[in-house]
């Protein structure tokens, strides 16, 4: 699996701001799941309804979400090291991520 951190793709933060959520208090891990091309690099096609699972530093389940129709997902975690497991029919990838309070971990995951 290759990822491309240069073009973050998680959902817009506008909706959270509109709900009055103070982003300085949140530790957000988000991203987009895209189909991999022949070279393993995301080819831009979003994978909706993929299952994204968040595991803590000990590998314990913490949350799981289906991606939206744009292939996007978002978790509200705590500072530290986490692992994402992404599943779709016939596909499974893992992605390590480090999160910090008040900052955004925004990922592009190739499936």
């Amino acid at each position, binding site marked *: 699996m290759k990822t491309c951190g240069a073009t973050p793709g998680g959902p817009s933060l506008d909706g*959270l701001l509109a*709900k009055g*959520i*103070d982003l300085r*208090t*949140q*530790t957000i891990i988000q991203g987009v799941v895209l189909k991999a091309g022949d070279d393993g690099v995301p080819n831009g096609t979003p994978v909706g*309804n993929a*299952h994204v*699972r*968040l595991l*803590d530093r*000990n590998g*314990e*389940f*913490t*949350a*799981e*979400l*289906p991606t939206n129709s744009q292939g996007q997902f*978002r*978790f*509200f*975690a*705590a500072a530290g090291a986490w692992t994402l*497991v992404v*599943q*779709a*029919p*016939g596909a499974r990838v893992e992605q390590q991520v480090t999160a910090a309070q008040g900052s955004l971990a925004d990922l592009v995951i190739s499936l």
Partner: protein
Amino acid sequence: MSREKSLVSADWVTENISNPNVVIVEVDEDTTLYEQGHIQNAITFHWRDDLQDGLIRDLISKEKFEALLSKSGISNDSTVILYGGNNNWFATYAFWYFKVYGHQDVRLLDGGRKRWELDARPFVTEVPTRTATRYVAKDRDNSIRAYRDEVIAAIGVLNIVDVRSPAEFSGELAAPAHLPQEQGQIKGHIPTAKNIPWSKAANEDGTFKSDIELKELYVGAGVDLAKDTIAYCRIGERSAFSWFVLHELLGVANVKNYDGSWTEYGSLVGVPVAVGA
């Protein structure tokens, strides 16, 4: 074995999809998934809009439950098959709910939406029309429902199982990580509770582990199955999952779901709270 009467496989559902005595119900907190696609002939219940009183914090009344099932075309002798997203959290909550109101034959689709999707089984968008019935519910069975006072009395006496994630148990997180971490309750857990996350009872595809693995999970974590047990989480849906494992799959007697869970306990004035692993 209890597994056969409480759990069905995706193959069983496929074979019985047009069985007139079988009513398939998708239960979720987000019914837009149902609108995008669901198992053929399935109807849907929204765990809040259909199953919460709305004015007070409680289950809907017996009369409202009867009205919901009657208009949904569910009879007292229907075989009700429940499934949903979120690894069947809200479907197991509905299973427990159907048992509270005494429905005889209710079963869960092993793995729920997730396993169905990973297997690339078909979904449809047509919403079935069902003929209304006259459903008659039983009075609530409080032998499977715990209230706050008995939870407080159970501290240090009975098995209390906190099925949330380790991060919520320790107080690091206030809610499952797909929700913003701004919650009204303080953080932590009920003293003497054992943290046995619901997820340890499930495989990665959402199906349940074997009975041998499940029994070892609870006994190995120090749960004395000869004692009464109370399970809780944040709002009572993940603990319904673990209640299902203990009471339905393993056939353990005297297991209660504390559906008030941490959103109630963590808001009570003056009750003891523990933090840390």
